[in-house]
């Protein structure tokens, strides 16, 4: 039993940290989200009556739009990211030269580690008015201040982060596929493209789904990219929480949005992972 006690002793600091900095704060905003908002107060009063108003208010189409925008950008960018990352991951995974491999992986990890703010600022300099905004909008004949261009820049900002992460996730998956399988198909007369489409890609589906899941959850919680690159035209749910908090100081409503965002993120992750594990069970 001594061993058991020491095991619990080892787990205690983590559990305390977890309870103090994650569970209690979330329980607190859950409570706050059901409180009645009184304008001019910071946070709801201790004895404020409970109400569903903060949630009912969010059914309004104007708020629903934030959720829709977040999902739309999330799905589009995750898919584009996967399509671009797959050939990169494949080339690195099948690379024989150790030096090339190391440099390529180092480059991708560096790109992943790059400070979010550095990334956003670099995107703004490059695709903003002092960079190539005029040039790019000139090609497609759109306004550099219009919504379309802003949306494109937000997407590029997200992709700059998603491509390295998806590629790194996929390298592991592709490495575990036996290269003999595609070779066999090619020996038997299948074209290279077809052998990849019918063998490599289907075998990668679990990896593709988990890369999609990672990308999508990153998009759902994106905050800085839409805030800086979106210039107020593209706003995600994260930005709505911040606006509720900083601009109108409506804490109960901000809490309700945060709770909804949390539930949506967890549900998405749960649905995708249970879909993956039910179809591609590892056991």
């Amino acid at each position, binding site marked *: 039993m001594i061993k058991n006690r020491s095991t619990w002793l080892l787990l205690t600091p983590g559990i305390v940290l977890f309870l103090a*900095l994650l569970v209690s704060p979330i329980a607190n905003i859950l409570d706050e989200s059901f409180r009645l908002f009184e304008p001019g107060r910071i946070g709801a009063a201790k004895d404020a009556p409970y109400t569903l108003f903060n949630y009912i208010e969010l059914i309004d189409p104007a708020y629903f739009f934030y959720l829709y925008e977040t999902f739309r950008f999330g799905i589009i960018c995750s898919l584009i990211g996967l399509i671009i990352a797959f050939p990169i991951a494949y080339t690195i995974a099948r690379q024989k030269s150790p030096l090339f491999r190391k440099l390529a992986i180092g480059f991708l990890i560096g790109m992943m580690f790059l400070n979010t703010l550095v990334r956003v600022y670099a995107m703004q300099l*490059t695709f903003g008015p002092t960079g190539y905004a005029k040039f790019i909008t000139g090609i497609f004949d759109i306004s550099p201040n219009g919504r379309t261009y802003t949306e494109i820049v937000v997407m590029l900002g997200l992709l700059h982060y998603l491509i390295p992460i998806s590629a790194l996730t996929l390298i592991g998956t592709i490495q575990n596929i036996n290269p003999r399988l595609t070779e066999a198909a090619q020996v038997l007369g299948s074209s290279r493209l077809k052998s990849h489409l019918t063998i490599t890609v289907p075998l990668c589906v679990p990896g593709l789904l988990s890369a999609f899941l990672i990308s999508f959850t990153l998009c759902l919680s994106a905050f800085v990219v839409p805030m800086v690159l979106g210039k107020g035209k593209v706003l995600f749910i994260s930005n709505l929480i911040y606006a509720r908090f900083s601009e109108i100081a409506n804490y109960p409503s901000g809490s309700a949005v945060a709770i909804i965002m949390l539930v949506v993120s967890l549900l998405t992750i749960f649905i995708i992972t249970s879909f993956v594990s039910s179809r591609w069970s590892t056991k």
Partner: protein
Amino acid sequence: MKRTVDNCGMIFSTVNILLALIFLLFPIIVSIIMSFDGRSYLGLFPPPEYSLRWYENFFSDTYYLKGLKTSLIIAVIATLISTTFGVSAAIGLDRYQGRGKQLLEALFLSPLVVPAVVIGFAILMFFAALGIFDGFTRLLGGHLIITFPYTVRTTLAGLVGIRKSLTEAAINLGATENQAFWDVTFPLARTGIVAGSVFAFAFSMDDVAVSFFLTSPETYTLPVAMISMMRTNFDLTIAAAAVVLMVFTFCLILILDWVIGLDKLIGKGVYRS
């Protein structure tokens, strides 16, 4: 026909890789070049003349330096605490054989799936309810919870690879359980622990979404300082700050490579010749 389709596929794939490389690198190069811009205003790229004025600005501006200092202090303290707690939790999890092991592991990793903005907002509200308004304490709390899962996960990954028979052999040969741990398990798990703390440091330095809610006018991190300057100010000191942060990232990559080797982070896969 088959050939043509194949060649098109190959060309598409190569072009795709090249374009992605340009897309990833080019903005970084632009911001590095712009940080050496010699003009006194934010003008068109590329700059006609070069100077170090923005770096001089950055290193003499107390607003940025204060942010950099806070960022470093918070990152170091958060890394130390969350590595200690994370290693302890991972060893505990590795030993724990009772029910709910998976649940416990999922709980420890759960801050990874909670959106950062929700964490920041929730901690702000909770600390306010407790009457804690000190920026430093709040920031440290936020950074602890976002770095903790990384240290747990990498340490756990390192521990799982160590065969139990090694520790058992040591105990059979007369070592106490403590000795077996410090002489056998710990040295083998060290790479995982170091990787975890490098990740923790990197993510603490990187964070904006959590810190944004938790800063006070007196205590703010460098990324938060940069973002508020970005809104009000149109000079290139931010570019210099960005390059300073890039140097940090680069050093972290070198450390990671030196400690474990970048190749090992991904693994070699089953079918590599």
